[in-house]
């Protein structure tokens, strides 16, 4: 199949069908990245775009690149994105309030103008008949061999610089997320003393399990029907993403600000 893909004639009917099937998917997914309110939805649309782009690379003879695209982008980069989205808070949706007045209109106008310029530039350029990478592959004895030859001979200096960039990025990420420990680490004796003296020696109540909600952000209900605040992790309370159940909401509207929670 690799021979077939890398030596196909420059344009074929099959490629045209695949292109006109995949290109709209890419564009729609890209638009959905921009218009999705939640970052998680954006991330999922991003994964769609990446996979379709990998297929487009493979269609044009970039088989190695397509595989790397799937492994690096949809595998590593998107996982990193999802990880950070979960860390920052899934429910934290974007505010659509403009800080600069007229920014949205100006941005869309600018982007439209830019797009028109680019498309016009491409349409006015004259291209030679597409050659295809088949001959270049055959000269090196295979597709991966051709890429390896290019990377390790003509582009070996770039390759070294890119490796330095990667190492710097790894060190930088470690430095940025490193937290200096200001107080000595608490061990078992200190923790147990703190627990007994601290006024709450027993474990905290676990979050509620209901027919509709069964997650750590749903507080358990105390015997009087009010939510047990300390059954939800402190981090969620600080983020303000605690989900009160419908029961509690109904009770609240009934009492209409009677007692303090």
């Amino acid at each position: 199949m690799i021979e077939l893909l890398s030596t196909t004639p420059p344009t074929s009917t099959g490629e045209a069908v695949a292109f006109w099937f995949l290109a709209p998917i890419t564009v729609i997914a890209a638009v959905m990245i921009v218009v999705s309110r939640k970052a998680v939805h954006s991330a999922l649309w991003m994964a769609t775009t990446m996979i379709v782009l990998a297929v487009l690379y493979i269609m044009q003879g970039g088989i190695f690149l397509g595989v790397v695209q799937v492994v690096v982008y949809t595998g590593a980069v998107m996982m990193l994105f999802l990880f950070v989205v979960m860390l920052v808070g899934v429910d934290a949706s974007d505010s659509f309030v403009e800080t600069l007045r007229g920014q949205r209109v100006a941005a869309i106008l600018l982007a439209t103008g830019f797009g028109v310029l680019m498309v016009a530039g491409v349409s006015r350029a004259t291209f030679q008949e597409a050659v295809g990478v088949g001959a270049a592959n055959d000269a090196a004895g295979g597709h991966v061999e051709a890429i390896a030859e290019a990377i390790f001979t003509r582009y070996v200096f770039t390759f070294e610089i890119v490796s330095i960039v990667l190492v710097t990025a790894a060190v930088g990420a470690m430095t940025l997320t490193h937290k200096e420990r200001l107080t000595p680490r608490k061990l078992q004796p200190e923790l147990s003393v703190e627990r007994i003296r601290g006024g709450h020696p027993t474990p905290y109540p676990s979050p509620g399990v209901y027919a509709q909600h069964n997650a750590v952000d749903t507080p358990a209900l105390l015997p009087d029907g009010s939510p047990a605040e300390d059954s939800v992790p402190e981090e969620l309370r600080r983020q303000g993403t605690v989900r009160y159940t419908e029961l509690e909401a109904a009770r609240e509207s009934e009492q209409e600000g009677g007692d303090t929670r």
Partner: protein
Amino acid sequence: MNPENYLYLASILFVIGAVGVLLRRNAIVVFMCIELMLNASNLAFVSFARLNGNIDGQVIAFFVMVVAAAEVVIGLAIIVTIFRTRRSASVDDPNLLKL
């Protein structure tokens, strides 16, 4: 089909990414749009490699991918650091250039 269509697709994707960078407030989504722009340029590189019949465009696209991965690592680390101190991932909030 004309292989130039890939270049049109790359231009459209790049413009969509640019719109996202200009419009969105969430730093993570802005980052995804930057990735989209990098990928659009990669698509153009691969198309040019195919049009000209040499492998160099694919090699450069490969390098772009590596740089994009490094950029994501650093950018997300910065976002996490800002979120830790500011409790927000919006690009409007960190306007004091200090943590």
